[in-house]
């Protein structure tokens, strides 16, 4: 079915992209970099100065965030300026929110089910 294959293709594209987002977010240094960029853009060297790890390690974290689409880099003269791109994050949060509601609902129903079964046994 044509319709189904288009849907699957889109699903794969989004899933791959979201994997990158989730992987990027599972590290505390990368989350701290994103938090640092919430209010204002910053130069790569400014960010490196904020963390007690090597510039090389910070660069790796930044590249991973860029690949996940969470950071944008612009070059102004000799400076590399980083800014936050929140869009992939809201996709990830939407997925999480949808499933959180689903499982909360199922566990409430499981509670009701075992409770009514126990009452019948008594």
């Amino acid at each position: 079915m044509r319709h189904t294959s288009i849907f699957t293709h889109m699903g794969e594209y989004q899933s791959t992209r979201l994997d990158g987002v989730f992987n990027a977010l599972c590290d505390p240094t990368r989350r701290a970099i994103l938090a640092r960029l919430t209010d204002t853009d910053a130069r790569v060297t400014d960010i490196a100065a904020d963390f007690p790890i090597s510039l090389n390690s910070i660069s790796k974290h930044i590249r991973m965030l860029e690949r996940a689409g969470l950071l944008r880099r612009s070059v102004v003269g000799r400076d590399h300026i980083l800014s936050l791109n929140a869009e992939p994050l809201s996709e990830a949060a939407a997925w999480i929110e949808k499933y959180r509601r689903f499982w909360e609902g199922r566990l409430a129903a499981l509670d009701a089910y075992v409770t009514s079964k126990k009452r019948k046994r008594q």
Partner: protein
Amino acid sequence: MNAALAPAAVVVRRTISASAEDLFDAWLDPEALAIWMRPGSGIRNTQARVEPRVGGRFEINMHAESGVIPHSGVYQVIDRPRRLVFTWISPHTGERESLVTVDFLPRERRTEVVVTHEQLPDAKRDAHMGGWTRALEKLEEFRQ
């Protein structure tokens, strides 16, 4: 698996006044599943088929006004009454495999059920949320 190493996941907990055995069994009993695995909005009934062994399949078909919403997967771990792990495929995961772990933790005379759902999500582009800071807070909250 060490949950601390896993990417962000949905983690939902509920403490229920029942034994771990009774709760565990409700996940593998098709008649029980047909009753409680039925999301509220518009699902008229649910049919479940399970093959309760490691490597066995399950199918949970939720009948909505618009048609059947099929869910399926394969059991990876069946450790009664402590842990159940299965793959989970549905239209909401973009028909791709995700992973669900259910832990049953004794809490005096009750049991805490912890559902961890992870891997290969499919986000709906139209489901937008507020500011990115709020989104990050949410991810932080659900990350384990």
